[in-house]
Structures are given as structure tokens and as C-alpha cells.
């Protein structure tokens, strides 16, 4: 019975299904194209070595002095725009993978989607315990996806959002809020007690350590990605100089081509862009899970929660 029905259904909605599919693929690809186009159109051409932060695309006050470290002007930089575009692209990817889900997986994309979900749930279970899987698996998966795809943006030649301090700081502050919310879920008294339980001197250190959490998370991600980019540029520049020194005597155009530049920067890029980017995403997500899982007073929460449930049950029974 099902064998005859399913193909008919597929036939019926195939046109609409395909149109939506194409729209979703466009939603995945267009933001990336937009990022490249914005990069080409809005930034001045670079000559020679260029290590710089994100370009400012738009600023509320056009006469602002952009060389200041802390500027109070509202501005939109390349890093922000790229991270928004990555978010749109990831949303498109997620919708595409989950489009046309069936109870029994038949398509490749459903297998991929199920694989991702199972892997992330396994990761959360192994590092936080089964209690947190439901609320936390989507959050962790979002962090990993955003971080990985942001780091991979450098393969398109555009500015990587994760090598901008402000983007990663935003993520770290968000994670810090989540950690604090989970620590304080059993009331403020218990939250304060986690700091002051070992005496006043240790309490100060505890507070400093708590504040250092988001700072170190942001620095870690930003520092790794940024240092990789800087090393890549430095090595490339050095190889260009070396090849002009060694091969400059070759006649004509041959002498101008930086032949030594072939190879090594690509290997470095595989390490710094692909491996390091994915590793930092994993580390960021793992640290999030460890901090939340470690700070969450599970026993107390379960005690109170079950108590409330029991009381609710009693009132229900009384009514």
C-alpha cells in the first residue's frame, strides 16, 4: 500500500518541492556571493602586505575618527556584515537539510541531518550528561556551525568574522549569560554561595575567575584565528621577497612571477583555516558545555523541581 502511495505524493508536490529547494539553495549561496561582492565593491584595492582589521562599511557619523580604539560612533563593519551573511547561509543550509523529512530516511540530506543531530547529541551527552541534551544540543550545534562556517569564510577571500574581536566577544558574552543563568537557576542565594563558600579571600579570586571566563574564551578564539591569518600573510610576503631575490634574474615576465610562493602558504592555510578553525569551534563549544555543566547545581535543582512537582500533584489530588 505504501509503495504505491509514496511515489504519487512525490509526483504531486515535486514542482513545488523543487522550487522551494532552489530557493533554499539560493538562500545558502547568495549571502556568500554577496560577501565577496561587498568585499570587491566597497574596499579599496590592496597593494603588497596588508594586515588590518575589518573595513568599516558604514558609519553613523561620517567625520568620525576611526583610528580611535574605543569609538562611540555606531558603525557597521565588514565583520558584522559577514557574520550576518553566514547566519543567513546557515539558516538556509539547515532548512535545506530538513526540507522534506520523512519518518524513514531515504534521501542523502536527511541522512546528513540525522548524522549531525546524533553527533551533537552524543557530544552533549558525553560532556554534560543526559539531563541537558534537550535544551542544549541545538545551542551547541548553533555555536559550532556558526564558528566553523565563519572561520571557513576566509577560503572565499573575504574577512573572517572570527578574526574580529568584537564578534567573538559577543558570542563569549552570550555564553557567559547562559552560564550565569544556569548557575543562578536555584535562586541568588545559592549563586552567591558558590563564590563565598571558601572564605573571603578565595571569594575575590572566584569573582575574578568568573569574569575571566568570557574574556579568555573570546581571546582564545580570536587569537587563534587572527594569528593564523597573520602568519599566513607574513610567510607569503617572505616567500615573495625570497623569490624576487633568487629568481629576479630570469628574463621578462618569468622574473616577476613569485614562483616560491606556490605550495607552502596553501599547506599553512589547510592547517590555520580548516583545521584550526574547526578545532576552535569544537573547543569553544566544549568549554561552553563544561562551564554550564560544571556550574549547574543539578542535585539541588532536581530536589526543588521534584518537590514542586510533588506539591502540584498534591494540590491536584486535593482539588
Amino acid at each position, binding site marked *: 500500500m505504501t509503495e504505491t502511495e509514496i511515489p504519487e505524493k512525490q509526483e504531486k508536490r515535486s514542482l513545488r518541492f523543487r522550487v522551494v529547494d532552489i530557493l533554499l539553495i539560493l538562500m545558502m549561496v547568495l549571502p556568500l556571493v554577496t560577501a565577496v561582492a561587498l568585499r570587491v565593491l566597497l574596499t579599496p584595492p590592496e597593494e603588497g602586505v596588508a*594586515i*588590518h*582589521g575589518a573595513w568599516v562599511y558604514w558609519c553613523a557619523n561620517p567625520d568620525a575618527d576611526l*583610528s*580611535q*580604539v574605543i569609538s562611540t560612533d555606531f558603525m557597521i563593519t565588514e565583520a558584522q556584515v559577514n557574520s550576518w551573511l553566514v547566519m543567513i547561509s546557515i539558516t538556509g543550509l539547515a532548512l535545506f537539510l530538513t526540507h522534506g523529512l520523512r519518518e524513514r530516511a531515504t534521501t542523502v540530506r536527511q541522512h546528513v541531518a540525522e548524522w549531525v543531530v546524533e553527533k551533537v547529541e552524543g557530544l552533549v551527552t558525553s560532556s554534560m550528561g543526559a539531563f541537558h541534551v534537550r535544551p542544549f544540543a541545538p545551542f551547541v550545534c548553533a555555536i559550532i556551525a556558526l564558528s566553523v562556517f565563519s572561520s571557513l569564510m576566509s577560503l572565499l577571500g573575504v574577512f573572517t568574522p572570527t578574526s574580529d*574581536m568584537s564578534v567573538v566577544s559577543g558570542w563569549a558574552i552570550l555564553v557567559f549569560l547562559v552560564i550565569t543563568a544556569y548557575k543562578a537557576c536555584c535562586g541568588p542565594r545559592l549563586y552567591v554561595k558558590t563564590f563565598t563558600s571558601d572564605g573571603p579571600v578565595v571569594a575575590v579570586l572566584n569573582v575574578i575567575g568568573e569574569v575571566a571566563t568570557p574574556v*579568555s574564551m573570546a*581571546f*582564545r578564539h*580570536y*587569537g*587563534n584565528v*587572527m*594569528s593564523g591569518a*597573520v602568519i599566513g600573510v607574513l610567510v607569503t610576503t617572505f616567500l615573495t621577497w625570497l623569490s624576487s631575490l633568487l629568481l629576479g634574474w630570469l628574463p621578462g615576465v618569468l622574473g616577476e612571477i613569485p614562483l616560491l610562493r606556490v605550495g607552502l602558504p596553501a599547506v599553512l592555510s589547510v592547517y590555520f583555516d580548516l583545521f584550526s578553525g574547526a*578545532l576552535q569551534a*569544537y*573547543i569553544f563549544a*566544549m*568549554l561552553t558545555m*563544561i562551564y554550564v555543566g560544571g556550574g549547574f547545581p543539578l542535585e539541588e535543582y532536581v530536589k526543588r523541581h521534584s518537590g514542586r512537582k510533588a506539591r502540584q500533584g498534591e494540590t491536584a489530588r486535593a482539588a
Partner: protein
Amino acid sequence: MELALAIVFGCCALGAGIAMIAGIGPGIGEGNAVAKACEAIGRQPEARGEVTSTMIMGCAIAETTGLYALVIAILLIFVAPGVMGNLIKDLVK
């Protein structure tokens, strides 16, 4: 004014270099961690996955001090010269 700017730029570069001395610590620490992880895997090959992921986390934590130094060095190289230069130009005016 030129002398002042030269001193500022030179000291920024020196400071960045000195700050990166902190890279020694994470290097030794991560080396120790990886050595112990290799020993553990050699003793218990079946626990390879768990040991590796724990080692990566430990390395990430140990890296923190080095990354603080790195951020300071990056600030000193890319940000501080501009800020200090503006400051000195303002002072001279």
C-alpha cells in the same frame, strides 16, 4: 617630534616582542600535556578518543596565557602606534 614618534614606535615593537616571551609557558605546558597523553594512549590504546579530546581541552586551557600575550602584542603592533602617535601629535600642537 620625529624623535618622540620614533621612540614610541620602537618601544611598541620592543614591547610586542617582550610580551611574546610568554609563549614559552604554554609551549612547555602543552608539550607536557601531549607527552602524558601519548603515554596514556600507549598504556591504554582503547581509551584513545577520550584521552585525545581531554588533551585538546587541556591544551586549549593551557594556551590561554599565551593568547593573552598574543593579544597584547597584536594591540601593541597594530593599535598602540596609531593611538600614541595621535597623542604625541596633539601634545605638540
